[in-house]
């Protein structure tokens, strides 16, 4: 017992004098060694061989867990999807993308098409237009041609459905682009115009498709930016001719139907065509500031169009006028969650001895108004649309948007306007945010019958892709 106590005491004394061992101190020695000899160490390794994976942690290999075994069931099931996405998609796409990037093929192509200086060049054009009908073409452009601000464009595109456009324009910009003068000549031949008759009661059964050929010359002056106060004035002369569509969706040429159901002289120009002088005046005022400033504000657009037939035997005289007022409220200022309301009203005055061709009537439907319906689905002497939209940020380059609109086309001075004759449409989609005034929209929209119909229903569904101005 005495011996035990003696040993314990000695042990305690020894222990008391001992230093704490810090396991991290060992690392310092190794670090110092590594610092001193930052050169290759050990025997050379042969190419193609790998060194063994070291067990640095020094723990025995853990036995596999049950979940590791069970995971093989879905892995086997999903294996074809893995093979497809990895080897049929990712690998070939990777090789292609890396080749393009490594050899700067995009830069070379851009350099080639812009003739090496960016102020002029030739660009391929792919246009996806109404009904997602793709057209391909070329645009030759030149900026600052011999004079600062003097630009020119020549281009043409076509598809295999009798659609073709070609045009040339010159433009002169001055005062930091604040004032622009331009002239344009164009030829358009399109086979995909639709006409369901005029007024609010048209039905899908009345569908007519027609071909239109239009040759046009135009002079235009623009003052002011898209934000703030601005105006543009243009004078245009055009020659318009029509034929039945070759579109297989239009089973028969429905020219007689156009004549019959419209029951006005309006459609008489279908067979004769017409030559028109048209003057357009657009003014706008927009108080919204560009992002990232809050998106609240007001926009007012006022539009007027005067049309006069240039053939003695065609008594065409009309004035289309109207506008829209929009209010935007950034719900939490700066958050870019914007609620907006728009009211659009347009009307047409026709001279006492005059007429208006059906193709010059007010139209609704398409990318900008009544988006649940085809472009120019509604024709009339007057039109009214009320729109409610909520847009909200979803990405650095995109907003989401919800849209609800009611509206329709009516006879002159909204003569046969009834609330029950309005149609509704609802859309949800995305839009680009680069500008508050112009956006590329992708929208899925549903359109309804008129509200007073006994069997009120959603009778249109559309996916639209296009450029939207203003609202």
């Amino acid at each position, binding site marked *: 017992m005495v011996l035990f106590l003696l040993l314990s005491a000695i042990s305690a004394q020894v*222990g008391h004098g*001992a*230093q*704490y*061992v*810090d*396991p*991290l*101190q*060992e*690392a*310092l*020695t*190794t*670090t110092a*060694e*590594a610092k001193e000899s*930052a*050169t*290759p160490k*050990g025997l*050379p*390794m042969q*190419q*193609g*061989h*790998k*060194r063994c*994976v070291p067990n*640095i*942690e*020094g723990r*025995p290999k853990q036995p596999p867990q049950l*979940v*590791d075994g069970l*995971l093989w069931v879905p*892995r086997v099931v*999903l294996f074809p999807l*893995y093979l497809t*996405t990895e080897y049929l998609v990712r690998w070939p*796409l*990777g090789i292609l*993308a*890396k080749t393009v*990037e*490594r*050899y*700067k093929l995009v*830069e070379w192509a851009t*350099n080639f098409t812009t003739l090496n200086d960016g102020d002029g060049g030739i660009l391929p054009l792919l246009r996806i237009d109404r009904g997602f009908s793709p057209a391909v073409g070329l645009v030759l452009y030149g900026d600052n041609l011999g004079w600062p601000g003097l630009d020119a464009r020549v281009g043409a595109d076509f598809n295999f459905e009798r659609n073709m456009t070609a045009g040339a324009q010159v433009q002169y910009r001055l005062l930091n682009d604040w004032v622009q003068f331009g002239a344009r000549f164009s030829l358009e031949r399109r086979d995909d115009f639709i006409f369901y008759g005029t007024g609010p009661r048209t039905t899908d059964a009345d569908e007519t498709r027609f071909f239109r050929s239009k040759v046009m010359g135009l002079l235009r002056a623009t003052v002011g930016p898209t934000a703030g106060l601005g105006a543009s004035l243009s004078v245009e002369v055009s020659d318009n001719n029509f034929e039945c569509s070759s579109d297989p969706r239009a089973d028969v040429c429905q020219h007689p139907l156009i004549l019959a159901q419209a029951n006005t002289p309006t459609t008489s120009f279908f067979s004769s065509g017409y030559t028109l002088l048209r003057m357009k005046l657009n003014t706008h005022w927009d108080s919204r500031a560009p*992002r*990232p400033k809050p998106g609240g504000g007001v926009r007012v657009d006022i539009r007027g169009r005067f049309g006069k037939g240039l053939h003695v035997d065609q008594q065409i005289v009309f004035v289309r006028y109207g506008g829209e007022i929009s209010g935007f409220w950034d719900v939490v200022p700066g958050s870019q969650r914007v609620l907006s309301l728009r009211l659009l009203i347009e009307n047409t005055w026709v001279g006492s001895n005059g007429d208006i061709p059906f193709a010059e009537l007010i139209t609704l439907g398409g990318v900008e108004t009544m988006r649940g319906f085809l472009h120019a689905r509604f024709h009339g002497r007057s039109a009214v649309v009320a729109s409610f939209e909520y847009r*909200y*940020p*979803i*990405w*650095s*380059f995109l907003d*989401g948007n919800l849209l609800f609109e009611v509206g329709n086309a009516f006879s002159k001075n909204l003569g046969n306007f009834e609330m029950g004759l309005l149609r509704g449409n609802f859309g949800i989609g995305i839009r680009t*945010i680069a500008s508050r005034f112009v956006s590329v929209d992708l929208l899925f929209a549903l359109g309804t019958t008129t509200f007073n119909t006994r069997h009120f229903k959603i009778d249109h569904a559309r996916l639209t892709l296009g450029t939207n101005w203003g609202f």
Partner: protein
Amino acid sequence: MRDMGIVAKVLIIAGVGLLACALPMRRFVDQPIIWHDADQYPVVAPESYWSPLMWDVADKTLFMPLARSFLLRRAGRAKNINALGEVPNSSWYTNRLTVRRMSSQEIVAGPCSPQGGAPSTSSTWRALSGKTDGANPGFVIEDTHDGRRYLIKFDSARQPERATTADVIGSKIYWAAGLSTPCNSVVYFLPGHLVVAPHATKKDALGRTTKLTDEDIAQAISSAPRTEEGVIRASASLFLEGKVLGPFTYEGVRSDDPNDVIAHEDRRELRGSRLLAAWLNHFDAREQNTLTTFIQAEESTLGFVRHHIIDFGDCLGSRWDSDEMTRRFGHSYYFDMPHVALDFLTLGLIKRPWEQVRIAEQAPMFGYYGTEAFDPVAWKAAYPNSAFDRMDDQDAFWAARIISRFSNKTLSALVDAAYLSDEDARNYLLRVLIARRDSIVRTYFERMSAMDVPKIKNHQICSSDLMQDAGLTTSAARKYQVRTNGGSWQAPTQLSTSGFCQDVPTQGVGAYIIVEARAAFKNGAFSARPVQFHMIDHNASLRLIGILR
């Protein structure tokens, strides 16, 4: 009798089983802790790797996650950690702040040699090559004084002094944390100081090599901010040693490097560097901002590959033309499908952190680099990074412990090394660095019991509280519990000035002992995960053979 035999066998097996349960599970073997991963065997130089920029973004954002999702891989623990959970020295990593205290002077000197790391302003700099177009022009220069080569880069007019500050502070912080970085310094020079070398070249946008001219230099430096005296500020990055082999990737291994056997996404230093990136908002932490060099042995063609992190110019609040995009840096990927889809479907009703960020009035040069919406757990690089994505709590704790060791004094010295001309901006940057550091450290130290690697004397182990070491709490506000070999939780034998000491009774030579410890605030519950110290009883003293967190 036969039945009795079976009963006896069952009883014996059950008894052994119970005994096994009562004894601590031997997770570690009694061997020295490995502090060196021998990945520097002499090998033939691997092929140079070219990294695609656009494809890397598209692949990591869309294609790779889609394809790999069908493999249902489980992210495991880091593969290159030693028994203490530390990263051994290798061609990737050198233990610095992990294992010792470093002075502010040492950290500020960083990877620069004692001779300094900036080109001499008393000698002429010869521009050898350059990238003169684009948003970030730069030159490779040679200091005629000593022949050393540097990459010179400038600040943008929109954010004067930011990029150069970021390059200097970022490189030194990463270096002190243990990674290899170039020696970056802020330099000032007059335009005439930089002359074109006779055979200097530049690459244009099409990759064509043409002659570098005086006009190119004049054009490139024309937009660089200058002092009132016309002096230009730039960052000078000293060329790294060895032959350049291109970037390393954040996933997989290099097939033609025999030393490279641990998948990069399983390297703790790369996983944990996510927190370094979060601290500095190094959102551009992608493979193109890494570099490998081949270190050749003397008189031999053989050598090994060394791995570096380079280019920190995006840190500390880089602003791009798109404000919508800039706000999202650190919070969302360039294209973050879950964010986009959720915001679309919820009609934008979720308030996002990037809506809360503000540009500080006293330091607009630092853009949205601030503290308002900083969340170290949710932080994201500009696009998915395989190593960052696999960071687990252990990796994060490892990195947080390193970050906690950058003292306020050291950070102040680092900021001073950037020579900011505006005192308000300097103070703002220091405040933000400190606040973000504390946010990271607090977050991960509260998730795990933040007890340091214990020191051992005979049969007493003493562990300091990292939370106290970091200055985030005091001993009066902390409490600890300890248990041995799965026994009941008890207060430790004694409290030390920053932590506790525990006497561990001897259990015989060779006994395997696990001491678990947990820490909490006095007014809170012991919710953090306990840390396990695995030891072997060597009679006279204990020997630490492993730590599990």
